[in-house]
Structure formats: C-alpha cells, structure tokens
C-alpha cells in the first residue's frame, strides 16, 4: 500500500514493544460485537492509474465551462487564474500545513493572511477583514448574527434581490436563535423600498451589490437612514471583481461587507471550496466571527504575525463564542491573495473594466434579438433578459447546440411564475466575441 510506510516486520516489532499480540488487542475497548470481523463491503485498494481512470470517467460525463460558450454566473464566475497561483498553492509548505497555531513556524501562512486581510479591507472599503469564512453565503448568515450581537435587536430585513440561496442560508443560520428574518419582495428591475420594512426590532438590512439580477444600486441614502436609527447596513457582493469598477460598499456607509471571493484565484469547482470574505468597521472588531491575524513582534523585536483576539472564538469561549467556525477557507484564501497580488491595483481595475466592457457588448448584441428584452438599466458583468419563451426550455435547447446560455432564474425561484422567462447571463474576460456571436445566433433561432 503506497501510502502506508509500516512493514509487517515493523508492525510485529511495535506490537511486541507495546506488549500485545495482535493489533485487535489495541481495540479492546470497542464493544465486541461492534468490531468488524471482516472488511466492509467496498472495493479493495487500487493503483494510482486505476484511480485516475475512474476520475477521468467521472469528468468525461460533465461539460466543462471552458469547452463551450458559457454564460452562467449567479454567485460563481469563470475567470482566468494565472498559472503561478496554482503552482504556489500546491507547494507542500502551504498545502500541507495546519492552521497557524505555532506562529514561529507558520509565518508564511500568517503573513499571507495579514496581506489578505489588508486586500479585502481595501477592496470593500472597510477598516478590517477577517481571515475568511467558508464562502459568501455562510459569511452572509454570520453577518446577520453579528448585527444582532451589535444592536441587541433580533430582526434582519433581507432584500428580495439577494441571491435566493443566500437568503435560505440566512434563514437557516438564524432559525433557532430567536432571530426573525423578513424578506422583501423580489423586483427584477425596480427600486426596492427596504426602509419601510424597518421597525424598532430591526438590527440590519442586508442587500446585494450588484444584486442577484445584476442591478447596481447606490445604497448611501439607505445607509444614512439606517444609521440615524442605529441600524446596520450589510452589503453582500458575490462577484468581487465588480468592486474594481464600482464604488466600494465602505464608501456607501456599509457596516458589514461580506463577499464571495471565488472569482479571484479560485475555479468553479462545482460550488466549492470557495472563500468567504468578511469585513467591518474597526469598532466592531470584537464581534467578528472567525480567525484574525494580527501584527506583533518576537522576543528580539522583529516583526511577526499571530492569530489574535481568539477570546472571541469557540476554542476559548465555547458556547459564548461569536461563531462555531474553526476550519475556514485557508488555501482558497491563499489563492485569492496571490492572484490579487499578481493583479495589483492596475490589473484589478483593468480586469473589472474588461468584464464590464464584455457584458455591455453582449447586452447590446442581445438587445437586437427578437424575443429578448434586457431588464437591467445598470449592470457590471451580469444582467437579466426576459425571453419570449420559458428560459429553462431555451437553455436546454441550447445545450443541444453545445452552448450553456446562462441561468434560467426559475431554477432558484421555482414558485415565482413571473420569472419563468428570465435568463441571467454572465460575461467575463474568458468570454470571446465568437462565444457571444454563437449565443446570439443560436438564441435567435430558438426564439423564432
């Protein structure tokens, strides 16, 4: 067995040292009937080549995004990741290290986290960020809980234009904590009046920016109005590249910003692992969930980094912790920070501009197709079109033409008949003009 170094002789020698005859003598505390007498009913070990063949067979039955014109976004985006990123995250010193509990021999991970926290704070326009959550959706759930801790009120108002699965995660995260979640009506392209839902018990309003349908709304006035009542504004960004082009949530007055960081450094991976971003104002630092890396000095006065403010966390505070999170997004965080460092400010802004330009181009091409109506006034790299036919049927028809045309919104809103013909389309720097023209051509045929 290629992964098990002990030989039969080693085992015999070690059992002798321990003073037992048989390996099962070490399992003596297991109730006798529960110790299996034979092997479980699963295949026996395989060679490396056999395993590889099995996975190639799984992979062959999926259509990979890069192999066809591809337009799905909705919280996960296909971007180009520089080769250097994947090389670095596969270095054993990063890949096979644990959480940096021993700072003297974990400065690599810790310094990268400190840089990551700085980048996230800068991008979101906030004071501080934590060392990551599992993903954007769970970060969103944690934000609702944090708003309650800060305000000591128990009602969160959630925009109906927040990603529907994020809404579900917020509802589940607060289900048994005596919190109340009120979701406003979904409005694909009309302004929401969230303020009218705010009452005395409200702790925060959670909005998405750009929203699920791609609209860009200025929430500055909402932030001001909420702050007058001592309520918080939580801003969710699921396409973090957008913040290279549009005003930061911090500039609008957000109190907590959560995001999905997958777009930077991380592949689609069928939904995970991704990287949850979580940023806030300095004054709320002690209410943050998750790990934080901080700067300090060593015994010789040299700068170094450590995990800090851990008295918020489960391993110290137990049932009074700000969250139960332990393992976070570690290596995905590293991928994010390396990609962001390669981009730098200049690259990040340019990447955002390319994404926006590509989306504008496709929107303009699609607007000329009969049976397609663009619903957005504003958008970044994703927008919603209303078709003259059921969008799910159209997408399936286009799969036959080797095009993955976007997300039929109905997949996430099965009960909302008004949205049955709506198609959410995402465009990134990986979308070529040929891809766009193929989509436009075939869609025109299907909608005839």
């Amino acid at each position, binding site marked *: 067995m290629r*992964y098990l170094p002990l030989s039969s002789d080693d085992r015999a020698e070690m059992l002798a040292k321990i003073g037992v005859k048989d390996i099962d003598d070490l399992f003596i505390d297991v109730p006798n009937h529960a110790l299996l007498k034979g092997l479980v009913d699963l295949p026996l070990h395989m060679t490396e080549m056999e395993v590889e063949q099995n996975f190639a067979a799984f*992979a062959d039955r999926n259509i990979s995004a890069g192999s066809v014109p591809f337009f799905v976004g909705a919280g996960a985006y296909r971007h180009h990741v520089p080769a250097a990123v994947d090389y670095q995250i596969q270095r054993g010193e990063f890949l096979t290290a644990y959480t940096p509990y021993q700072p003297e021999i974990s400065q*690599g991970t810790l310094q990268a986290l400190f840089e990551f926290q*700085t980048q996230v704070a800068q991008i979101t326009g906030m004071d501080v960020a934590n060392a990551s959550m599992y*993903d954007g959706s769970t970060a969103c759930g944690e934000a609702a809980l944090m708003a309650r801790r800060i305000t000591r009120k128990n009602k969160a108002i959630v925009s109906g234009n927040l990603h529907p699965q994020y809404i579900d995660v917020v509802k589940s995260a607060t289900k048994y904590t005596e919190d109340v979640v009120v979701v406003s009506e979904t409005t694909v392209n009309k302004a929401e009046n969230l303020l009218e839902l705010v009452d005395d018990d409200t702790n925060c309003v959670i909005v998405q920016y750009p929203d699920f349908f791609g609209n860009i709304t200025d929430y500055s006035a909402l932030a001001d109005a909420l702050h007058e009542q001592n309520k918080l504004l939580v801003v969710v960004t699921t396409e973090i590249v957008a913040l290279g082009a549009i005003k*930061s949530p911090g*500039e609008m007055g957000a109190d907590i910003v959560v995001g999905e960081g997958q777009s930077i450094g991380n592949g689609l991976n069928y939904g995970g692992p991704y990287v949850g971003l979580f940023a806030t104002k300095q004054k709320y630092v002690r209410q943050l969930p998750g790990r934080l890396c901080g700067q300090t000095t060593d015994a010789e006065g040299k700068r170094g980094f450590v995990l800090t403010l851990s008295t918020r966390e489960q391993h110290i505070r137990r049932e009074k912790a700000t969250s139960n999170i332990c393992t976070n997004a570690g290596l995905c965080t590293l991928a994010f920070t390396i990609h962001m460092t*390669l981009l730098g400010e200049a690259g990040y802004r340019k990447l955002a501009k390319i994404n926006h330009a590509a989306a*504008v181009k496709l929107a303009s091409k699609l607007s000329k197709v009969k049976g397609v109506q663009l619903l957005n006034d504003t958008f970044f790299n994703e927008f919603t079109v209303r078709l003259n036919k059921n969008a799910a049927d159209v997408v399936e028809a286009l799969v036959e033409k080797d095009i993955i045309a976007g997300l039929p919104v109905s997949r996430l809103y099965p009960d909302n008949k008004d949205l049955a013909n709506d198609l959410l389309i995402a465009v990134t720097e990986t979308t070529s003009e040929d891809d766009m023209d193929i989509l436009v051509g075939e869609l025109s045929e299907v909608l005839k």
Partner: protein
Amino acid sequence: MTMNNQGRPTSIENASNSNRSGYPSYTGSRGLSQVEGLIYEIGDTHRTGVDLPEVEEFESRLGGMERSGEIGLAGLTEPEAMRHYTRLSRKNYAIDLGLYPLGSCTMKHNPRLNEKVVRLPGLSDIHPLQPISTTQGALDLIDTLAHWLKTLTGMPAVAMSPKAGAHGELCGLMTIRAALEAKGDARSIVLAPESAHGTNPATAALCGYTVKPIPATKDGRVDLEAMKEALGPDVAAIMVTNPNTCGLFEREIIEIADAVHEVGGYFYCDGANFNAIVGKVRPGDLGIDAMHINLHKTFSTPHGGGGPGAGPVVLSEALAPYAPIPYVVAGDEEFDLVEHDTSGKSFGRMTAFHGQMGMFVRALAYMMSHGADGLAKVAEDSVLNANYILASLKDVMSASFNGPCMHEALFDDRFLKDTGVSTLDFSKAMIDEGYHPMTMYFPLVVHGAMLIEPTESESKLSVDQFIGMMRHLVAAAKAGEKDRFSGAPYNAPLRRLDETAAARNPVLRWTKSEQ
C-alpha cells in the same frame, strides 16, 4: 570555456578555526532563512503580474457608480510574486517537512494523485448552476462518495453540503432540532463532555440550546452515572466524540446511546476522530443518530494552512427527512439534484450550491486508493503508531490514562513538576529540534495536556526519531536546562512572539500612514 584558475576547492581549514557561531547580518536574513517584506513594501499600485488586453471605448452601464480614488492594492510582477510567496512558504512547517503530531487534527500525508484528479477540467471547471443534464458525472461522483461514507459508517443517509467539521455539527444538531420540533418537542438542553471540542458547545448555542457539561471519569471517559443524572425530558441530544478527545474509545458507548434514547433524545457523535476506527468499526453499530466526518482529517484532504475542509453528516433513518437541501437522487437512468424542499420537513440550507466538491473528489480518490482493506489498515497503523509512542514514552513522561489508546496518546505535565518548564516551553523546544509541537492544553480535563497524534503516514524510523527527540528533551528538562525551554525557539524563523501585545493593540492590516 576556460578553467577558473583563481578558484580553489573549498577547504574548511580557516572556517573551522573561527570560534564564532556567526555574525549579525546586514539584511537580517540568516542564510536560507530570508527576511521578506510585505507586498505593500515591495510592490506598488502600478505594477502588475498579469497582462490584460486593452479595452476599446464603450458606453458604461454602471449608472454613475464608477469607483474613484485609489484602492491601494499593491501589485507584483510574476518573478517578484513567485519569490515573495516561495520565501513565505519556507517559513511554514508542513507535513511534507516532518512528523506533525497535532492531536485531534490528524495531519496525515496528502497524496498528490488527489491534487491531480481534482484539477481535471471536467471536475474543476464546472459550474454549480449549469444544467443538471451537463453534470451527470459530478452527481455520480457525489453519490458514489455518499455510498462509501454510508457503508463505512453503517448509516442509511448522509447530508453532503456542510463545509467543515463545525458546519457539520451545526447541520447535525439542526436536523435533530427539526425532528424534535416536528414532534412538538424542541427541548432545551444539549449535554457535552467537559473534554469536548470547543465547537460542540458553540454549535449547540447556535441551535438555541443550553449546554450542560458532563464530567469525565478518572479513566478519561464520559461519566455514565453523571450523564444519566443529567438526562431528562428536556435533553435534546448528547454530543460525544468517539474515539474521544483523550484518544480513548468510549467503552460504554452503547449504554450512553441507550440512555439518551430512553429519554427521547438523540445521540450526536462528533466524528473528528473517525480515522482511528475507519474500516474497523461502524458508528451505526454503536447506536448513534448523526455524525459528521471531517474529510480533511480521516480522508486526507489537505489542511491548507487552515482550510478548506468538508463535513458531511451521516444520519439515521429517523433524522434523514429533516436534512438540509440540496441532495443527489440516483434515478434509473440519470442523477437528479433536489434543490428545493417539497416535503416541508427539511430544516433549510447550510450553504449556497452543493458543498465542497473539490474536497469530495480528493476524499473519494483517497478512499478508492486505499479500498476497504487499506482503510482498515489506516485505522490500525494510526492506532499502532500512537500506542508505540505511548509505550515508548510513558516511563519518562506522564501518560494521563492507562492504555491502550486509539490514534493519539495523551500526556500531562506531571513529569515536568519542579523543572520550571511548562507544556508551552516544552513545545517550543520541540521546534528547535525540527518538529511541530503536539496539541497542547487540550483536552481541558488534564493539566498541561500534550496530545500526540502521529497518524499512519509515519514510518517506524520516523516515529523512533520522534521518540528519541522527546526523550532527549525530557532528560534536558529534568537536568535543569531551563533556558533551553524558556527561551525556545532559538532556531525558528522568528523567536517567541508576543501574543499578548497583539491582542491588546490589534493591528489587523497594513496601513500607509504607519510605515
């Protein structure tokens, strides 16, 4: 080419005449231990390591929301970035560098095959919301992994979406609460042993439960009598780690299960230590109702400096209807993904999308590589290595409990009595010997805990070297070499770090003004 006639073969004659151990360097670096600045100190906002095409003029649709002003992001070109991160990587300890005996964390070898297959475009470059008809291989893979997990645990159902162990705990307890509420009996208390991971009480609190700690017996197990006394009609569940955090199998596990079931509560098993019994014992045969499995422990998906993990939760027949969405259904001809609950029973959703696919791929590759036979050996070798360490160190260190242990050996600090050396000091001295310290001060049930988990990945030679090093340090502590410990580490990239100052005045990001 001409020979360099001025060069001479290196001789150590002069070097060995020097009495000095070294000179302070101008750079602060020491040979291959190189000082590295922050990206903000070596890069700037104009530099980039990514070439992107120019954009033609176009009409913006941002609605006047353009971002103005500098963000402040530092960029590096590729050679600079490679050097930066390579230098940083060399300041990390890692499994690839040596035995990583963190008890409870299971730092075993991460096979590189798993990194290769997870990067197949047909697995890595697929979108969670692309048509289900175009991801049949992915759904088959998830279903196959689910089958392995159910078979290995002897449980009928599994919720795949939780993103880590603690997330799995939350999933399990929420499922339990939903099942209880469906009977109109939510209850209010969760019992957890004093030795439990901090995530257990933190999770129970998130589910709206009050946590009642159960004391341990003198032999490091759940005090069954005390537990029975704490049980009542208001107890929703007991959370027990098995093998427990002292590295011991809960001998009275069946009695624990029976007792909690008798009062109508559920048995949640924390499966963090499943690696000790995988392929040897099925938790389903022990009377559990729910258990999360840390794929990043038992099934070796890389810890990656803190994550990501994955925490699928196996469930009993009674709990399965209350599990979260989504889940995969294997039809006669194709796989389906259920993303909306139509039964009204599911408690909801743990996360957007379908879980940690990248971890599923790696874990399944690990399982298939080992097979039923290899997985049982994984458990046996991990337990053998731990017991060998226990047997080889118990004469000089203080074992907290009588053996045999399972996959980890627990010591406390009694052997350091009167030496002036603490568990922390002892751990830091291990760093100077080229090792990552073991888990320290956990579990809380013994004083100055040292929890050593070698895993099955270590050869006998490696374990013997570790034992030799530990015995050497114990002898040094007992010989009164206090300074070796209190000043340690001396040979790491940095000396001991001031965590107190870090917490008193938190500096959590780089800022321009400060420099």
